[in-house]
């Protein structure tokens, strides 16, 4: 389908969800997960202020470097690894087709 990519999200019970994601609606990964009712809270609404959309990027995607805001939030988050990102800061576009991410463990 045109303007649709596939993103695989592995939830906290290790279940894989292959999601069809539109690329023409300005969605980010956190919003995509929420629209499929995956257990992502997105408490702050996408301002990189809560880390409830913390994911590990498992595929080798060419993602833009985290902004200072995203780095700052990851500093206050837990279970952070080298491939940690905030889903709300990953804008969906054609090049991300096939990306696989895993939801990080929830904390507090």
């Amino acid at each position, binding site marked *: 389908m045109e303007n649709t990519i596939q993103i695989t999200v592995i939830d906290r019970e290790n279940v894989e969800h292959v999601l069809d994601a539109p690329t023409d609606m300005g969605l980010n990964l956190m919003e995509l997960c929420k629209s499929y009712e995956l257990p992502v809270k997105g*408490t*702050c*609404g996408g*301002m990189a*202020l*809560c880390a409830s959309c913390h994911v590990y990027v498992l595929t080798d995607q060419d993602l833009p470097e985290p902004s*200072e805001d995203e*780095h*700052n939030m*990851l*500093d*206050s*988050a*837990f*279970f*952070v690894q080298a491939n940690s990102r905030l889903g709300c800061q990953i804008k969906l576009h054609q090049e991300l087709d096939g990306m696989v991410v895993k939801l990080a*463990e929830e*904390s*507090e």
Partner: protein
Amino acid sequence: MGDLNMQTNTIETDILIIGAGPVGLFAVFEAGLLKMRCHLIDVLPQVGGQLTEIYPKKPIYDIPGYPSVMAGELVDNLMKQIQPFQPGFTLGDRAETVEKQADGRWLVVTQRGVRHLAPVIFIAGGLGSFEPRKPPIPNIENLEDNGVDYFVRNPELYRGKNIVIAGGGDSALDWTIFLADSVKSLTLVHRRTEFRGAPDSVEKVMELAHMGKIKLVTNAQVTAVHGEKHLEALTVQHDTEGESMLQADHFIPLFGLTPKLGPIGEWGLAVDKGAITVDTLDYSTNVPGIYAIGDINTYPGKLKLILCGFHEATLACQSAFKFAFPDKKLSFKYTTVTGIEGMPSTAEKV
């Protein structure tokens, strides 16, 4: 209620609003138009909720009539807008308990013991009350207040002790600088090499580390706490060099604040996924006299938007009036026609 002293210490109002964010503040305006007085309680020391606490300098684009407004500026304007109605405030304190009184009013007591009486409660608590973000370290709760502290309440407690602070923001840096001179040893553990605090503080911390007054452990995280009755040591996991042990009398994790529903969750209100369920007719909860407005409520089609919260506050006020004053006639007026008739301040009211 016969105790005179008790009565003078009790704040009485028409609507007690829990949460002084934008929606709680606007509720004061709509209540004021109906001649109802309001008093607000907020856990934060200032009004504005997350707008002032988290993103005062961020622009908001979906407030009708404002193409763009800074969050902090919106709060300032709301405060101006409600000024004629002289609301009261209990700030930096958390609403803990609610109890129905013989006269039908609600008694709400805060953490510090401030008593509030009102026939109606509006819960406008947003995301909840802001509490320290606790690191997910196994069994850390067993040592809370026995060496693990999420706040620095009394710096004297740390004099001559081995202290470990974790975090990379301003509070971690500021307390590191403040405590460096009086403690026996101080180690600052941070996940990265860069610190996000004020440049002056970062420089000062680097200088302290350079002089050997503190120890800086970067690219590392505390992963375990050790001690029977009191904290004795910590395990630090380094990104590249494995684990190490740190002797510690006190561990102060400073990872910012995170909102929690808190004690309101125990008030007998119907809750769905951390939000209070309401009737969209008037945003009433399952408990008569208690309403929930703004981000804290949920209903089919709910959108967490300030503008929706304003609407909810407006309708809740109409319903609250009928609930609190069933014998009085409620008339709907336009401010353009009638203007704003303010209220005398509580101090002037006899």
